[in-house]
């Protein structure tokens, strides 16, 4: 990655060219409204597979709304409507034939506050499998163990699988929620400020985890924390007032932003 960047002329890179591979997700001229409020304005972007993309921007800039477009979580808001196209793996996810449940199995989500179910640790991770109708106890136990190992929680909880998930610490709960998402074997993971409710040590362990997970998954993370975006993401998109102001390789955004607004935001002049 670093060598290719060095060889490139980093001053002016057209949006299309920052993508090295075939894109996992592509969005074309997307507008989102809540009633009369224009939350996202004509945003187009492409996201590469097996990368971490960070959405940054001040509160209310539309980044979470935009993220929730990807797994159709906005559908439950009655005043929500949109205009534009979004394709994941080349398929229109708002098409007439789209099965929302199937989409969400492919596009998992981790939320701002850890939200484990009031069930046992084991049942939390097994939930996604059970709702798919998987009954084979061996398969379920295997997947639960694998998922917990992937988030480095297995050693900590392997003797307490029957204990309530609510008894875990905040950081453990969030890792459990990530494991729960992984158990369904998604290919994209959306993370909506996953560390904002956690202490620095738990945050660091989640960040390590995100770094490892990108080998297998495409990760999109909304964050308020710019250090976090610079530490863990390959690409960064800066949103402001519903506009996608700048989208580029993370190191470029943080070292040589093209737009004044981006520079002001990352240098802490506003936001």
């Amino acid at each position: 990655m670093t060598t290719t960047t060095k060889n490139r002329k980093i001053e002016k890179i057209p949006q299309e060219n920052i993508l090295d591979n075939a894109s996992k997700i592509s969005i074309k001229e997307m507008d989102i409204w809540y009633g009369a409020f224009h939350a996202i304005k004509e945003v187009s972007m492409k996201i590469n597979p097996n990368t971490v993309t960070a959405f940054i921007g001040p509160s209310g800039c539309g980044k979470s709304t935009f993220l929730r477009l990807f797994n159709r979580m906005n559908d439950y808001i009655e005043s929500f409507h949109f205009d534009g196209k979004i394709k994941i793996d080349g398929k229109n996810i708002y098409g007439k034939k789209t099965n929302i449940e199937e989409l969400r199995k492919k596009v998992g989500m981790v939320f701002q506050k850890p939200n484990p179910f009031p069930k046992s640790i084991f049942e939390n991770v097994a939930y996604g499998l059970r709702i798919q109708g998987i009954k084979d106890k061996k398969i379920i136990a295997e997947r639960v163990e694998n998922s917990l190992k992937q988030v480095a929680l297995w050693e900590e909880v392997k003797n307490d699988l029957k204990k309530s998930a609510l008894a875990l610490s905040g950081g453990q709960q969030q890792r459990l929620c990530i494991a729960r998402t992984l158990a369904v074997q998604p290919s994209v993971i959306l993370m909506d400020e996953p560390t904002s409710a956690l202490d620095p040590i738990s945050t660091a362990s989640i960040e390590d985890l995100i770094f490892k997970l990108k080998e297998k998954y495409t990760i999109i993370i909304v964050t308020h924390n710019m250090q976090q975006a610079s530490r863990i993401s390959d690409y960064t998109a800066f949103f402001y007032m519903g506009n996608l102001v700048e989208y580029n390789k993370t190191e470029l955004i943080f070292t040589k932003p093209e737009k004044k607004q981006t520079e002001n935001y990352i240098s802490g002049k506003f936001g």
Partner: protein
Amino acid sequence: MKLKEKIIELILQFFASITILTTVGIIAVLLFESITFFRSVSIIDFFTDTQWTPLYSEKHFGILALVSGTVLTSVIAISVALPIGLTIAIYLNMYASKEFKKTLKPFLEILAAVPTVVYGFFALSIVTPFLQSIYPNLETFNSLSAGIVMGIMIIPFVSSLSEDALSAVPKSLKEASFGMGATKFQTAFKVMVPAASSGITVSVILAISRAIGETMIVAIAAGQQATFTFNPTVPIQTITSYIVQVSMGDAPQGSIEYRTIFAAGLTLFVFTFILNSFSFYIKKKYQEKYE
């Protein structure tokens, strides 16, 4: 000025204590009259005899005959009210639009506001004939139609309180479930209902407690025959309808017949007291969980 404040406080205190005094008074009278009653009737007979015939020449005082009627009608009522009430609660919470919810809720509450004498009449003159058209052996007075109608009456207790319990489940759990590809139905039954189970239990207990104390419907539609039975097709008598029968008749004050209503009343009170305390206990535990 200070004196005036003090006087106002005392007056308010007095009114607040009236409710407590009334409860204490009721319990005292129930206890006092019941103790007198148990001086002439063996407490063992009272709890083990299965015949209740204080108004006949050959007197038996087995409260079980009335308890069975009460339990029978309440069980029928709750087996009608729980599935329907819970379905309504889930529908309102997970599926219905805000507009529809606003319209439906007041209508549901009307169910609880219909005078119970109307329900009793409805059970006797509409539900029973209808059930008889399906099952001709059903007697005119029976616990089945009284129980069903009582169940309809207590639907709002279950639906309204259960819906409150479902609404109290953090939105984040619903989102987590949807986010993993669960359908609304799966989310409702695998996440929402278990998470709201304590609140739903409270709603069921309060509904049962209401059913046990219900008088008019059973007095009109279930008959006046104290029988130790769990057959829903024959006439029975509940504790409440027995009390009505004696209170309206001419059992002379101070007689043993007269005192039976206090013993029966005390039994009823103990039932509802236990149920209400239990729901209070669950409510308290449940509040701790989400705060």
